[in-house]
């Protein structure tokens, strides 16, 4: 079984990278929310599904094409996130993280349940906007999958630059560590926190729109991904954005390799990696340990 042709290996690696693009986008959103707000966002999977459904509803009732939904749906999901943060999550900032986690978890439950009650469980199709592909010699690469990687990379790198390298980003980081200090400089900290949550959630929505043409749009499309993406963030180092992005792509590739060697383990291998990483590097590969 191990005499696998090189074309197959290349193909699997590339496919892994493509899947990694989704992981990276989702885990980036999660890492932003955790890194800057210290909130473990368990609604992330449902917000991912919400993004896909937003695109679907936009095309069905307003005839907004994919390209419009790509911008609008994340904004809509982001606004939901902002409202949720402003109205509810905010009240729990001075409690233990467990309660924030449980609140987002129940938000996820409500979102998924409502989508299922309204749209059923079997899923709804969403048309592929980029039909066709090119033959790379070792595999056939659909245009749409290529597009996913490009968008994901662009968004990931852009977000990382803004938060890690720009002045706005340094305010953000400072805001969450020393809100009192920033307030004296006249910067509105609660608004920044809200916008950060909105941005993280918007990224989940964006991933949802991008997933819509590949997967069936279904209420449970995010719940499988949720704990996998959590694992990605932990491996990368909670709060490390670069770590989340790299670990996302790396996991995609690792899954690809597992599919070659022992396919049934492909969705479990990540947890083995996570245990190993946490035992050796307690704060994740790129994390700084905060006690």
């Amino acid at each position, binding site marked *: 079984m191990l005499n696998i042709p090189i074309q197959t290996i290349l193909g699997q690696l590339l*496919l892994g990278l493509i899947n990694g693009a989704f992981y990276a986008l989702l885990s980036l959103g999660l890492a932003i929310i955790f890194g800057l707000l210290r909130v473990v966002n368990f609604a992330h999977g449902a917000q991912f599904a919400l993004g896909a459904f937003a695109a679907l509803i936009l095309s069905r009732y307003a005839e907004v094409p994919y390209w419009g939904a790509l911008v609008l749906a994340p904004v809509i999901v982001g606004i939901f996130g902002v409202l949720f943060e402003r109205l509810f999550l905010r009240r729990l900032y001075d409690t233990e993280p467990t309660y924030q986690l449980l609140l987002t978890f129940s938000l996820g439950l409500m979102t998924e349940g409502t989508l*299922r009650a309204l749209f059923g469980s079997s*899923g709804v*199709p969403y048309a592929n906007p980029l039909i066709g*592909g090119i033959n790379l010699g070792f595999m056939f690469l659909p245009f749409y999958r290529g597009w996913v990687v490009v968008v994901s990379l662009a968004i990931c790198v852009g977000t990382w630059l803004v938060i890690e390298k720009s002045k706005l980003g340094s305010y953000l980081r400072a805001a969450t560590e020393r809100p009192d200090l920033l307030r004296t400089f006249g910067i509105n900290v609660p608004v920044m926190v809200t916008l950060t949550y909105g941005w993280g959630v918007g990224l989940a929505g964006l991933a949802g729109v991008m997933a819509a043409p590949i997967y*069936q749009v279904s209420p449970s499309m995010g719940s499988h991904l949720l704990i996998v993406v959590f694992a990605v963030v932990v491996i990368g180092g909670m709060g490390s954005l670069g770590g989340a992005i790299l670990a996302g792509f790396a996991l995609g590739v690792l899954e690809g390799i597992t599919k070659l060697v022992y396919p*049934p383990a492909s*969705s479990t291998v990540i947890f083995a990696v996570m245990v190993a990483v946490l035992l050796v590097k307690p704060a994740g590969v790129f994390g700084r340990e905060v006690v």
Partner: protein
Amino acid sequence: MKLKRFSIACGICVIASLALFSTSRAQEPFKIGHLTDLSGVNVDISGPATTEAMRFAVDDFGGKVLGRPIEIIAGDHLNKPDVGVGLARKWYDGGVSAIFDVGVTSVALGIQALAKDKNKAVIYISTGSADITGKNCSPNGIHWTYNSYADAVGAVTEALAHGGDTWYFLTVDYAYGDNLQRDATKIIEKAGGKVIGSTRHPIDATDFSSDLLKAQSSGAKVIGLATITNIGTNIVKQSEEFGIRPNQTIALMSVDIQDIKALGLKTAQGLIDTSSYYWNSSDESRAFAERFKRKTGKMPNQMQASAYGAVLHYLKAVEAVGSDDALKVIAKMKDIPINDFMTKNGTIRPDGRVMRDMLVLQAKKPEESTGDWDLFSVLRTIPAKDAFAPADPSVCPLAK
């Protein structure tokens, strides 16, 4: 001692709330249960709409049996065996004579054992596992609508008939997937075909491009999807991107009208579904479908449609026996032929398998479809003896 008073108050509350749950026993209706997924991932396969179909049957039967009014209790097992079996146990102990539908195999197998224990009847509608009439067969259980074997037969034979003699399987890494692949392989090899490879995926996988790529490079003429329905439709959708069809045929073994609708005809066209029912196959089936749609807003699938016949047949047998003793009623059900709007002269095998002809349906091209629910054309009918695997006395002692 305020806290002590609190604890006593607490106790009173507990006891009072217990009393609230206590059942008042007035006139005893004849109770049958509809146990299925009413809210979760499988709700579209059966769900609350099936309860409606069962109500039709009760109404058409006259609302009474053995002089008692018939009551249908609906319950949600949330796809969790402990919830499902717990509920079933409670129903049986509370006087429910028969449970219909169920779904998820792990729940069904739990109830199969329970029904035998309690000597009650259970009639499976949306459950697929052929084990119900195989190694887990029971004199108290009837497998009514279809099973995993029948589900696959149409797609496999149709592909074989069109020259698909080399196969590659994408199989879910579960006993269910194994069985499906094993059954399909038997049919393929009997027809002179060959299985040249397979790959297994975990049940929580979402991306199948890697498996599809392997299947593509294997050069097999047919890619068989021996997997659960949700995954199957996802694979079909993803196969579009990689341009797998028309070079290779995709044989989706477990699929239903809801899934075809979910995929959309553009993607689904040409797929084969083996089903006991299609709403547009005869005047009688159309009449039932209209009635169903008026009530629920959608067309029935085979589970929902066949639930009607299952309840009707069961009630007939109860009336004929004159009691709800499960062994006697089920023996009676096996005695009399099944006849309703969708099943003609159906029989029940000793192992509990309902034998009925199955329809081979093919998803239409988008341009051929004239309406929302105009999804299939009927290709042919598979006679009952070919639609189901023969009974195997070596695994089920009931089979003769």
